[in-house]
Every structure is written in structure tokens, then in C-alpha cells.
């Protein structure tokens, strides 16, 4: 429990597709010296380092206002609004998509590197890595769309999700903290590990406060709220809105598939969400291939496929009924009549 990539065997168990096999032959002798588990994982590392560089850049300019053309309170507000929005957006992707991949398939061959890179991966998104991994793998993946899955929006009596805005503004950090208290802190078996990870997180997360507490609120706490409440919150909502728990009658209706090529290129193929939930150990770079392999079954099973990404889906579901109906429309080429 709580180990990276350990998926256990929940109710949503399904046989994993084998998309690539470990190398064999003479080259395998060098594999023990390989740092990354998969060559494409280098892009995950680059993404995270660039995110940290973006924070460093924003902090530096905040501390050197003349360089950024900040001449008074209004221009400072403009800078903070732009920087916090951008930092929130990339932090949401860095944790919700990028670290997410690592939690299913650790990117390094070394356990030590996986643990420590994970810790410095999620602190810039407002999370201890162990807590995020626990919420996602142990709670969300193992209990998808059941009452035990507290990571998703609460469900109304008819099975529909609660209001989009209510979920975004109440879930992180309020509900999340409450559930972690019950699941990790109050449980004796996990308490010690949870406290240790929390202490490491607090030590790392407090760094910007040592530099400048006011700056930390605007360029650290605010981006983390944007990342969690707006970016990750909306992502979680739209990926499973209108879906039903997996069953033999409806095996491919537990998640929506987002097939926008640009979105999937820039978001580590997170749009192939149905495939990901059914085969969480398949490497993120191989999800498009898996999608093509499962396409016929998805069409026959009536899977919900949309031609855009999570951002536009959030825009549709946050709107009035007319906009919500557009989300229910199916992407061309994915209807059973075609």
C-alpha cells in the first residue's frame, strides 16, 4: 500500500494490455545502468524541471520589480495575475498528469530516485507525493465511481455529479484534508509514514515563505489553489461526468475519451482516459496505440468519445444546460453506425 505503481486488485480489475516488452538480447546487459524506466520518461523530467524554472523566474522578477516593469500596486497585480494563472495551469498538469504517470509507472529504475524525485515533484503542486499517490491509485482507481471514491464529485440521487463549481470550490483542500485525516492520520498502520511524508512536504513547501512570505502567498499558494481547485478539479470532474461504474453490461462507460491531438501531445496522452483506467500500467506514450487497438470495442460498447480536450469539456460542463448538452455529443468516427 502506498508504493508507487502498486495497483493492488480492486473491483475495477481488468487484464493489462502488453504494449511493449522489456528489451532482450545483448542490450539487456546495459539495462542495469539505465536511469529511466522508459526513454520517453525523459520528457516528464524535462516538464517538471521547466515548471520549477517557471516558479524561479516568477519569484526572481517579483523580487526585482523594475526589471519586469512593475512600477506600482496595479502593475504588480497584473504581474501576479498573469504569473499565478500560468503557474497554476502548469502545476495542475505537472501533478495531475505528469506525476500521475509516475504514480502508475515509476519513471526511474532506482527506488531511491523514484521516492525523492516524487517528493520534489508534487511539492510544487501543493501535495505530498505519498498522499497524492494514495488518493489516486488506492482510492480513485480501485473504487472508480463507487461511494468509496471520495476523489470524485459527490453523486446526486440519480447518479449525476454535484454542481461543477461546488465540487471545485469545496474539494481541495477542505474535503481532501478531511478524508486524509480519516484514511491516513487516524489509521495506525499508515500514521507514521503519513506524518513522515507530511513533514518532508512541509519542509519543502515552506521554502518560498522563507524567501518572502507575501510573495509566497501570491506566487506559491495562489497557483497551488488554481492548480488543484480549477485545473485538477475540473479535470477530475469532466473525465467521469455522466459515466457509470464498470460492469459487464457497460464495460466502457466509466470514463470519457478526449481525442484532441494537440491536447494529448501537450498533456501526456491523458485524454485516453478510458484506456488508462482499464490498463493503468500501460505507459502513457503507448496510450494512442492502445486506443487504436481498442477503438472497435469502444465504438461497439458505446464509449463516450469527444473531439476536444479537458479544458473545453470544463467550459461546456461549467455552463448552462445548452452547453452541457454539447458535451454529450459524440466525436465523428466513434458512433456505432459509422
Amino acid at each position: 500500500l502506498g508504493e508507487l505503481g502498486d495497483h493492488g486488485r480492486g473491483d475495477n480489475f481488468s487484464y493489462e494490455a502488453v504494449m511493449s516488452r522489456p528489451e532482450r538480447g545483448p542490450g539487456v546487459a546495459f539495462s542495469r545502468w539505465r536511469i529511466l524506466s522508459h526513454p520517453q520518461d525523459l520528457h516528464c523530467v524535462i516538464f517538471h524541471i521547466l515548471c520549477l524554472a517557471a516558479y524561479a523566474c516568477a519569484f526572481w522578477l517579483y523580487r526585482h520589480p523594475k526589471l519586469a516593469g512593475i512600477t506600482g500596486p496595479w502593475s504588480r497585480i497584473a504581474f501576479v495575475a498573469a504569473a499565478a494563472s500560468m503557474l497554476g495551469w502548469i502545476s495542475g498538469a505537472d501533478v495531475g498528469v505528469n506525476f500521475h504517470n509516475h504514480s502508475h509507472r515509476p519513471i526511474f529504475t532506482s527506488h531511491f530516485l523514484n521516492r525523492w524525485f516524487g517528493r520534489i515533484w508534487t511539492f510544487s503542486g501543493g501535495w505530498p507525493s505519498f498522499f497524492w499517490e494514495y488518493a489516486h491509485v488506492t482510492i480513485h482507481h480501485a473504487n472508480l465511481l463507487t461511494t468509496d471514491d471520495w476523489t470524485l464529485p459527490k453523486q446526486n440521487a440519480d447518479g449525476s455529479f454535484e454542481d461543477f463549481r461546488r465540487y471545485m470550490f469545496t474539494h481541495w483542500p477542505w474535503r481532501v484534508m478531511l478524508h486524509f485525516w480519516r484514511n491516513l492520520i487516524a489509521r495506525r498502520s499508515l500514521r507514521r509514514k503519513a506524518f513522515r511524508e507530511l513533514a518532508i512536504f512541509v519542509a519543502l513547501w515552506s521554502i518560498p515563505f522563507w524567501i518572502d512570505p507575501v510573495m509566497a502567498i501570491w506566487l506559491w499558494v495562489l497557483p497551488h489553489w488554481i492548480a488543484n481547485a480549477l485545473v485538477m478539479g475540473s479535470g477530475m470532474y469532466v473525465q467521469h461526468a455522466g459515466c457509470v461504474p464498470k460492469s459487464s453490461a457497460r464495460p466502457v462507460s466509466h470514463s470519457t475519451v478526449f481525442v484532441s491531438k494537440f491536447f494529448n501531445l501537450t498533456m501526456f496522452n491523458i485524454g485516453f482516459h478510458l484506456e488508462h483506467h482499464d490498463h493503468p500500467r500501460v505507459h502513457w506514450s503507448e496510450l494512442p496505440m492502445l486506443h487504436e487497438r481498442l477503438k472497435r470495442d469502444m465504438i461497439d460498447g458505446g464509449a463516450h468519445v469527444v473531439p476536444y480536450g479537458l479544458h473545453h469539456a470544463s467550459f461546456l460542463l461549467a455552463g448552462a444546460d445548452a452547453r452541457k448538452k454539447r458535451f454529450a455529443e459524440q466525436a465523428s468516427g466513434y458512433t456505432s453506425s459509422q
Partner: protein
Amino acid sequence: VNGTCRADSGSQPQGAGLSFRLPIHRKVKVNLKGKEHTLGRLPHAFLSQTGLAFGRSFAPLFAIAVIAGAMLWGPWVSLAITAVAITLAMRLL
């Protein structure tokens, strides 16, 4: 092809109705050393991998450009770019 070509003097001309022979009309043997295929594909593979790296790092690179760009164009333009980017993302992505 980056291999070396050698004219085979004993072969027949390829062009029909030609009354004279030039070395180019003779059948040639290509001496391939195994590197030629790789050399041809290298730029494509390099560009493809570079494109993927930039594409996957698009979000943080864009964020750095907007934040650091404030040094060039000031905070108000950065804010305007952010507003346009968020609007476009909500509409298209």
C-alpha cells in the same frame, strides 16, 4: 544514397534506342555499407524527437515565455496574453 557507385562495363545500356553509351546508362552496382539507411532517417528521427520534446513541454515553456516576457513587454501585456491563452484553451482544447 550515400554509398559509392561502380559502373559495370559488361552490362547493357538501359535506354532504348540509344546509339551511344555513357557511364550513366550502364547498370550500376551499389556498395552499401549499412550506414546509409540510418543517415537518411537521422534528420527525420531527430526532428520528430525534438518536436515531441517541445510539444510535451509546451505548457511550461509558454508559461516561462509569458512570465519572463514581462521584462520585454511589461506585466500588462503578459496579463493580456494569459487571458487570450486561457480563453483559447477553454474554447479549443
